[in-house]
């Protein structure tokens, strides 16, 4: 899109991009056009109003969680990259690839770390899930209308139908930066989980309530 010289000059004048001599010459030129001069002054006032009224930054909701989710994703991507590299020997965690252990580990993690929080509506949203076995991918879907949450565990061996999966309903969380732990609380104020990060920035459960 091309601009006419007038538009370009007005923009440069408004943004202080003219030097003193150029600015003076331009102002002298527009002095003969009161309407244009009034429009320019109005735009200048508009800019001042915007700068005074519009925030340059917004507080990020659940800011600590925002950061930790990024760290978790980075760690996951690095683990995925690591996994895709050819290996000659089985790692020390190769037992996790055994279906029975993989199933148990994934379900324990899902049961322990489903991080649910009440949304503004009637339902809940899942903010995070964590699966320790890199061979299993957890995906979740929530349907407000049905008030139901579906958890899909890709890569998981068949799991007996009579086993149940339970998540925690987290009412709020508190982070203690001194000891780098996050405590999740239930609606009645009880402690559900105490989490920390391990050396790979993965969440680690330090303690949990009996029902977890």
């Amino acid at each position, binding site marked *: 899109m091309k601009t006419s010289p007038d538009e370009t000059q007005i923009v440069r004048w408004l943004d202080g991009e003219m030097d003193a001599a150029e600015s003076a010459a331009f102002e002298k030129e527009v002095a003969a056009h009161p309407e244009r001069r009034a429009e320019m002054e109005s735009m200048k006032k508009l800019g001042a109003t915007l700068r005074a009224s519009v925030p340059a930054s*917004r507080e990020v*909701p659940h800011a600590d969680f925002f950061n930790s989710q*990024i760290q978790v994703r980075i760690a996951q991507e690095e683990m995925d990259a690591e996994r895709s590299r050819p290996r000659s020997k089985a790692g020390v965690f190769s037992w996790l690839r055994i279906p029975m252990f993989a199933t148990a580990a994934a379900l324990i993690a899902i049961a322990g770390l489903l991080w649910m929080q009440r949304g503004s509506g009637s339902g809940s949203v899942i903010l995070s899930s964590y699966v320790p076995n890199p061979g299993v991918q957890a995906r979740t879907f929530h349907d407000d209308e049905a008030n139901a949450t579906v958890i899909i565990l890709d890569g998981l061996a068949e799991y007996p139908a009579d086993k149940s999966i339970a998540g925690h309903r987290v009412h709020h969380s508190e982070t203690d930066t001194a000891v780098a732990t996050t405590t999740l609380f239930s609606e009645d104020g009880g402690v559900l989980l105490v989490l920390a990060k391990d050396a790979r920035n993965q969440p680690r459960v330090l303690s949990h309530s009996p029902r977890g």
Partner: protein
Amino acid sequence: MQQSDMPPSTAPSDGEVPDLELVKRCQAGDTRAFDALVTKYRGRVYCMTYHLIQNETEAWDLAQEAFIKAWRGIGSFKSDATFFTWLYRITHNVCYDWLRKKKIQGDGEFDDSRTEHVAAAGAEAVPRAVRSPSEQIGGAELKARIDEAIARLSPDHRQAILLKEIEGLRYHEIAEVMQTSIGTVMSRLFYARKKLQELLKDTYENVT
């Protein structure tokens, strides 16, 4: 008007590690250094995604996506640009990809008349500056009208005016973020101002 090469709030304050130092650590694989950059810029990146998307929940996700992409690409970051401008460019691309997908899905995302706002729980705007008591009178209403008018701009006009007036970027930096020419940036600024003038004239002309 900001005339320096770096927006004021991106310059390190006393005791703060400079961005380039943190970037070098990130390039060596230090995720804690990246966490420090996320903490420093999350509010501004989230503000930008919110202004472009007009939905706080989506803006939260897209801001995260921008940081993830920044981490993936940090190895290619060169110090001839500021980290802030580079991060904004990634954020711009993430948001425009999202807007394109929404447009393809027929949601009318580029419709200038769109004024929907969806607030996330716990969301709160951080005031840019403390205002005098006289200015605070009617300030909330003024801000609401300005937000509504900004939301009615096209994404291109909206981003150009915010990067200029709120972030204080230079023309060449805006052009870099939006991946366009300086001439186009100036054109977008002119028409964004004309549109806002038309939408807000009665409002801001009465502000004392």
